């Protein structure tokens, strides 16, 4: 595939690649040049990154962390959150159709990738019904995202179950940062319409707020099978932040989302092995409200209390669920003695669902309430004059399916000087059963050759948590602002991985029950680097190597699960050039390579792709941009579905023009 790509790279493509490396002039920061001329009031209005205050701290973070800033998202010219994650080392982002995605960290990718936890402002968007994330319903305006922090590797010590291979924290801007109005209108051939209206203000007593509404329409992907996978969505939301006094602050935020996602489905029909294929749509309505109170005692001690309520109604041809979630979290951080930074907290979550059986799917019982109790504690110990930091901690939780779970971790970071750090970590993480794995009866497409009776995947009360012991090591080096490098290596030892084993001897139907009959090892190397050639031009690169090896236990007759070792590419890399032609023009280009995927189904080929974006700051308030994505191929497939057979479609070359007006 790589060779093929080289041959097909014609003049135009070569030119694009050249453009990418051409040394024009760039200015990455949105900071005026004449700072000294600014008044104090103006200076106080300038935004800086909160973490930059402690550069040594960042350098010595004892985990594989990658941060995407709002500026990065804007410069990549993406129109959704999944596309913004494509440049992160260690993550595999693949589009199944125009509204379905498979995103995972360190392997095991699937539409229902269950080892990656995703949080939006501290609210879990990991779906407890089937595990995984409905990315199509995660449509927070990109303009409001302050940053996305991706932590690869187990985060269970702090974040709890299901943060097995990674955690993605999407953090939205404080409403203090989104004052005034914003109108953003975009049109394109794939994201056909996108419109955001936002207004932010401040009341007399210092309470700031923003209100926003967004509408988006996505065109269908390419499909020879005639799949129709358009999507459209609306979101209305608000956020308000209030510094009550010097110590206390309160954040209240919420949104209402309504969306329709279409797909072509292949569902088993009776009598088996008949299959019916048709286009249908999934409707989702969801809303949430989150309140967070924070009190800061001093620089090393603070507490926060967060409560949220989340409601999801999802109505599709296979799955119909109404789910209400109530979540309470309390965290407290303090420094009991010099050199110790103690963090502890506890939480409670209740998930109440109501589901309706369809012809191919039912949960038994239809309605269920699940309670989750959690507690965690962690101590960060500074040694050797702050050059060595030892972090010890564990999460403890109790869930209704597997009972008590513990997830300890130990991390060590050594920062010999201000330029480099070495860290190592060993942790245990678990992936607790989803409601589906416990209670489902899902009629699946018959395997090949098709037996003359229906085949079901059935949940099991005996299904246990999947377990991981992870060993990680990393090295960071940064030379001022000129260049930096971040390398991490890991070895993951899994046990009790999910399998689907036949139950008994099939008479009128074949039942495959969820079990824990697989173990495995994964290892990998992830690297990212950044280099600044001038104040106007910088480049960023990332490389991922991954190897997953799974073994069925002797007792298992599973014929499918072992293939999940091949659902992520072995190698990926990306290269981004960010370039300011002058203070008004920006030019960005991104080259991406994703290796081939052998499973699920027939797999997908490796591909190279190129995205470019040109932006013009017409005036202080108006930004016009044009982004072209997937330029190297008119279309290409990225991933195939599993469990629920929606027709995959190919991602097409796209063009998106946008105008943003701030007032």
């Amino acid at each position, binding site marked *: 595939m790589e060779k093929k790509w080289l041959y097909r790279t014609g003049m135009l493509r070569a030119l694009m690649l050249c453009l990418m490396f051409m040394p024009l002039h760039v200015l990455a*920061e949105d*900071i005026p040049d004449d*700072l*000294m001329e*600014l008044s*104090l*009031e103006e*200076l*106080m209005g*300038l*935004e*800086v*990154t*909160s*973490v*930059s*205050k402690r*550069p*040594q*701290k*960042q350098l010595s*973070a004892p*985990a594989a*962390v*990658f*941060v995407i800033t709002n500026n990065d998202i804007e410069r990549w010219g993406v129109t959704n959150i999944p596309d913004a994650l494509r440049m992160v080392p260690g993550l595999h982002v693949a589009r199944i159709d125009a509204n379905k995605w498979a995103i995972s960290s360190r392997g095991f990718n699937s539409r229902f990738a269950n080892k990656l936890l995703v949080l939006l*402002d*501290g609210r879990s968007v990991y779906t407890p019904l089937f595990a995984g994330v409905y990315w199509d319903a995660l449509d927070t305006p990109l303009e409001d995202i*302050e940053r996305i*922090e991706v932590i690869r590797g187990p985060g269970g010590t*702090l*974040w709890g179950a299901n943060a097995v291979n990674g955690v993605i*924290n999407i*953090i939205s801007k*404080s409403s*203090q940062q989104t004052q005034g109005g914003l109108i953003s209108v975009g049109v394109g051939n794939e994201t056909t319409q996108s419109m955001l209206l936002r207004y932010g203000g401040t009341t007399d007593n210092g309470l700031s707020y923003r209100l926003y509404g967004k509408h988006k329409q996505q065109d269908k992907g390419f499909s020879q099978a005639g799949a129709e996978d358009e999507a459209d969505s609306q979101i209305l939301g608000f956020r308000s932040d209030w510094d009550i*006094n*010097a*110590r206390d*602050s309160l954040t209240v935020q919420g949104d209402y989302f309504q969306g329709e996602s279409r797909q072509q489905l292949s569902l088993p029909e009776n009598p088996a092995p008949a299959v019916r294929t048709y286009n249908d749509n999934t409707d989702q309505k969801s809303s949430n409200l989150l309140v*967070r109170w924070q009190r*800061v005692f*001093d*620089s*090393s001690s*603070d507490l*926060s209390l*967060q409560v949220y309520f989340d409601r999801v109604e999802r109505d599709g041809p296979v799955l119909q669920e109404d789910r209400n979630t109530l979540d309470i*979290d309390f*965290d407290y*951080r303090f420094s009991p003695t010099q050199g110790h930074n103690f*963090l502890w*907290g506890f939480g409670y979550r209740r998930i109440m669902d109501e589901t309706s059986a369809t012809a191919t799917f039912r949960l038994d019982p239809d309605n269920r309430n699940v309670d989750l109790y959690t507690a965690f504690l962690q101590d960060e110990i500074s040694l050797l004059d702050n050059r060595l930091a030892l972090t010890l901690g564990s999460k403890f939780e109790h869930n209704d399916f597997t009972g008590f779970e513990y997830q300890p971790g130990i991390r060590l970071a050594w920062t010999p000087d201000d330029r480099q750090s070495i860290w190592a970590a060993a942790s245990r993480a678990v992936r607790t059963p989803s409601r589906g794995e416990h209670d489902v009866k899902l009629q699946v497409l018959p395997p090949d050759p098709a037996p003359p009776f229906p085949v079901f995947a059935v949940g099991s009360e005996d299904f246990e948590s999947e377990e991981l012991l992870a060993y990680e090591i990393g090295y960071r080096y*940064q030379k*001022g*602002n000129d260049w930096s490098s*971040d390398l991490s290596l890991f070895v993951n030892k899994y046990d009790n991985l999910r399998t689907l084993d036949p139950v008994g001897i099939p008479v009128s139907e074949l039942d495959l029950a969820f079990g824990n009959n697989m173990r495995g090892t994964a290892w990998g190397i992830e690297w990212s680097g*950044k280099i*600044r050639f001038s104040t106007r031009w*910088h480049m960023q690169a990332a490389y991922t190597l991954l190897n997953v090896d799974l073994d069925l236990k002797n007792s298992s007759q599973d014929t499918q699960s072992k293939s999940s070792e091949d659902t992520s590419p072995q190698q990926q890399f990306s290269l981004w050039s960010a370039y300011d032609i002058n203070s008004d023009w920006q030019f960005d280009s991104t080259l991406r390579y994703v290796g081939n995927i052998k499973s699920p189904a027939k797999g997908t080929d490796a591909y190279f792709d190129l995205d470019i974006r040109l932006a013009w700051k017409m005036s202080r308030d108006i930004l016009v941009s044009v982004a072209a994505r997937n330029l190297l191929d008119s279309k290409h497939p990225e991933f195939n579905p599993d469990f629920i057979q929606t027709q995959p479609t190919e991602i097409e070359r796209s063009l998106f023009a946008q105008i943003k007006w701030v007032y």
Partner: protein
Amino acid sequence: MAVVMLVVCVLASIDAVASSRVTNRIKAAFIFNFIKFTEWPQDVRLQTINVCVRNDAGMYVELQGLKNKRAHGVPLEIIQIDDESKLSQCQVIYFGEMAESHLDRVLSHLAGRSILTIGDHASFIQQGGGIRLFLSNNRLRFEISPVAVNQSQLVISSKLLSLSRKSAMHGGAGQ
């Protein structure tokens, strides 16, 4: 949940390093303003205003932007201090990271002199420093220690004082 705090306190990226330079540039601009709004006593006859940097090479670089500027009719001089006995030649000192106990000693040694001390250490004011820069909601804010400033016989303009009070309302932590 844990996210919000940890994200700010424990984990961060190498990405943010680029912005630490931005922060330093903004800090330098703040320092220039502090100088403009501070009056040194009449009996100190200034040939130059010596802006000294102790223990922060990054700030020394960014403060070079003040080199050709003038304030109160005299040019600004940027000096990197390696030998602490030379601190007395400064009119302004910016303190980078250093051990609390050591900072305490240096600041108490300087008490009473007409030197504007600036730093961003969490307990800078408690230790006897003059102006502390800090981040609040991703923006730089500052607080002024009336005690330290009075002792030093410097006169800080009311504008600076009122802006620092506004800062305190928005999370001037450390008290």
